């Protein structure tokens, strides 16, 4: 994110702290998609992700005045809130699944694939989705924050409240597993 965008987002947050609803709408327009994609892929449930993202922006609305620009960029702060709420939701979902109240998550694919998303590409993407879903929760979150949210290692570390070294380890393991899954997929298709 450029300095100009960061300054604009910080200004939005100041306006939200003064209870400006239009600023909240603009913040959702800027960051809502990225947060939703990470939450959806992490939780494996669009409905749960939708609720989590609403909760994220409700928290932003209530606590915008507590944001400290010295500690993190706005984008990182938003992902930090999202990570915390996703972890809470994931625990509750796991418990509900354990006691039989919920079904396991279904694979979520883009229902409207682009023209470039050909059959073989779709097969590869299905493999990647399954591999992401099979990753341990922390590896999955680190990978999504890095690849989808495009946060650098330090920001991923801040969002997950772990050290940059731990993030590197999680990313190495996650990518290794994904590489193995896609290689296996290529071997099967050839």
């Amino acid at each position: 994110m450029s300095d100009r965008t960061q300054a604009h987002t910080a200004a939005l947050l100041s306006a939200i702290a003064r209870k400006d609803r239009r600023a909240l709408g603009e913040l959702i327009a800027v960051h809502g998609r990225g947060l939703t994609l990470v939450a959806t892929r992490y939780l494996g449930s669009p409905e749960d992700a939708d609720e989590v993202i609403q909760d994220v922006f409700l928290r932003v609305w209530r606590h915008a005045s507590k944001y400290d620009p010295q500690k993190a960029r706005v984008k990182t702060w938003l992902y930090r809130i999202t990570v915390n709420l996703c972890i809470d939701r994931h625990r509750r979902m796991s418990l509900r699944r354990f006691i039989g109240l919920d079904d396991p998550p279904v694979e979520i694919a883009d229902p409207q694939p682009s023209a470039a998303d050909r059959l073989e590409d779709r097969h590869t993407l299905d493999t990647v989705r399954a591999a992401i879903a099979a990753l341990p929760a922390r590896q999955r979150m680190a990978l999504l924050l890095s690849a989808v949210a495009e946060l650098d290692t330090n920001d991923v570390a801040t969002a997950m409240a772990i050290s940059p070294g731990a993030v590197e380890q999680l990313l190495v393991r996650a990518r290794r597993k994904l590489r193995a899954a896609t290689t296996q997929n290529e071997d099967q298709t050839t």
Partner: protein
Amino acid sequence: MSRQKEDTDTDINALVRAASAVPTDETATFYKVLSRLDADPHRTPVQLPSLAPSVALASFAALMLAAGTAGYALPDLAPTNPDDQILALAFGGSDAVRDPFGLTAPGSTK
């Protein structure tokens, strides 16, 4: 980090991004958040259930109060102890109930 590893990491990231792409509706999210803000309990004074008794509960309480007051107002309808009733059956009569062993009877030396 070697150049080749960077390339493969970039490839993996691109795959993850592509696999994570789903349609999103930020406008819908905004309106859902707004509706929850308007329904936010922080915006309205909290009304505890105990402070808002139902009409049925209030009527029942008034009835019990009236019945209790009326009961104590009648001379011979004072509440009786179940033990007294058992003693009355055993020794007979209300005097026996009040003094089953005749301890306070006239002429008693005890």
